[in-house]
């Protein structure tokens, strides 16, 4: 992973904590409430997005580049006659690109009315866990990742899994 050289400042960390607390206050956790997570890898690091934010997981298909769009968008694909965008999570999270392999998948994520593909290297599993298990992300995460993180924990085979917010990802890409 590339080093960004940008560590979150003390004030930023405090603001993030305050925002997280406010978010938790708005959405009080029900201890036994479970959440489904789709776990995948990007540059050999484990990430997840909530199952409710995933419409489907597609095998990799060639992506048509669209001149004029930024590097954070890989291009467009044809999903059974519908044209969908595919975002470049590697660029967005400032991580090294890994070549397409037979394990490459495109996760079709949704946030409200917005739908877009997210190219990942490997979908590892779909798990169901208690929501309360997900903790705020560790403070040492690069800002490029923590900006889009909802939380994290050792959720999969001893690996620390960063739970990404599809909402935050798509909002960043929307002007």
């Amino acid at each position: 992973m590339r080093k960004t050289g940008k560590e979150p400042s003390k004030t930023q960390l405090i603001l993030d904590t305050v925002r997280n607390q406010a978010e938790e206050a708005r959405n009080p956790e029900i201890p036994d409430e479970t959440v489904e997570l789709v776990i995948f890898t990007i540059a050999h690091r484990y990430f997840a997005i909530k199952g409710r934010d995933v419409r489907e997981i597609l095998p990799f298909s060639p992506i048509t580049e669209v001149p004029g769009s930024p590097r954070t968008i890989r291009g467009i694909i044809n999903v059974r006659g519908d044209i969908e965008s595919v975002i470049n999570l590697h660029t967005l999270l400032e991580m090294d690109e890994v070549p397409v392999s037979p394990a490459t998948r495109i996760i079709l994520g949704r946030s409200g009315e917005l739908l877009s593909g997210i190219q990942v290297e490997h979908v590892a599993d779909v798990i169901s866990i208690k929501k309360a298990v997900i903790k705020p992300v560790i403070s040492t995460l690069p800002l490029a990742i923590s900006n889009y993180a909802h939380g994290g924990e050792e959720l999969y085979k001893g690996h620390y899994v960063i739970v990404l917010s599809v909402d935050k990802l798509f909002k960043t890409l929307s002007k």
Partner: protein
Amino acid sequence: MKKDLTLLLFNIMGIDFGMDVEPVKAMGHVDALVDGKSGIIWFHEKINLPRPPVVYEFPRALRIETGKKRFYLIIDKPRDMPLVIPIKEIKPFPVLVEQFLHATPLWAVCPINGRILLLVDPLKMCR
């Protein structure tokens, strides 16, 4: 409103493009254009292709006329036969992509034979 659109297909740097043939009045070799002739636009000057440098393998010059606008547009690897597509096959760009294209001549897409054609508005090429 017509139900079909006739497209001139071409490919530059591996990307398939389609353009309404109506304002295309002629197609010829680039060499035939008089040196220094004004009103010559190279396709890549208006479309920001992803991987420069742009290489034209079989360039052709289109003479485009509409109203008072007349210019030559240089494209690459045009298909011999135009393609007629039903209007209903044309799709808008997805929201996340479309927002970046307002200032470009790209206006829609058309999935065809497993590939995706990017549709270009020739009238926006001479802006």
